[in-house]
């Protein structure tokens, strides 16, 4: 089962797509997308459950806690591309409909 594409989910996917091979931190994604932790983490959890996201722990500097990091899986990248195409098609359809009605 794939992910429901809410506007918030699209923001997270966009954040990952900028550099899809790079591991990212939760706070970094939160700042990039403007989403609060209460919105961001459920999306990340669902992405991980659907195997669109891989996670790892990175041990930080001494005295600081290890950080949880995230990166898109190949399936995740494929999903982002497909959802982008779908969104673009929807956008074009809406424009065409607007022109036809106008």
């Amino acid at each position, binding site marked *: 089962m794939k992910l429901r594409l809410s506007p918030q989910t699209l923001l997270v996917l966009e954040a990952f797509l900028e550099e899809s091979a790079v591991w990212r931190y939760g*706070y970094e994604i939160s700042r990039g997308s403007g989403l*609060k*932790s209460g*919105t961001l*983490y459920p999306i990340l*959890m669902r992405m991980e459950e659907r195997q669109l996201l891989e996670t790892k722990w990175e041990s930080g500097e001494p005295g600081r*806690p*290890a*950080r*949880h990091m995230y990166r898109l899986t190949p399936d995740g990248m494929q999903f982002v591309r497909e959802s982008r195409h779908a969104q673009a098609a929807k956008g074009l359809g809406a424009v065409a409909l607007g022109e036809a009605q106008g």
Partner: protein
Amino acid sequence: MGLVRSAARRLVAVAARLGPERGREWARAMLAELEFVEGEWEALWWALGSITVIARRSGQEWVRLCGAEMRRWERLAMDQMGKKTGLLVAGALGTAVLVMIAFALLYLTAVTFPQLGIEQAEWTHILVVIVIPAIICLCGAAWLWRRKRPLAVGILLSVVAVGTHVVLHFAHHFARR
């Protein structure tokens, strides 16, 4: 570390400890990330968001566990019901088989020893086919009542059915006279 951040961290730590086993890693992730959030009040908002996520996850986990438990009970009840029905039917079938055996024995005796005149003696029929099997069944049902009650109930039900049949038979017989 400021007071607000310290309180926020403590709140998330408690929520993570109380939260469900599934998703504890995510609670730890949010707690760890809190250390890197810039600004005291922003850290508090981060913590409140994290607590909401943990609470929602706990709720989902609770609903999932309750659902699983209810399905397990339902399956168990269905199994029990199936078993009871099977025993009830077995009891009824056992009585029917016993009556048929008695009837077959009586028939064989009548055919093998025609000089006994069993064919003409109606009370022999009733005794061998109805009364003796009914007594055996009643004794069996009494013995099984505490051990396998559905089986005993099945036997009793079929004895009642046979008894009703006999009563109706005699009622019809005497009404014709």
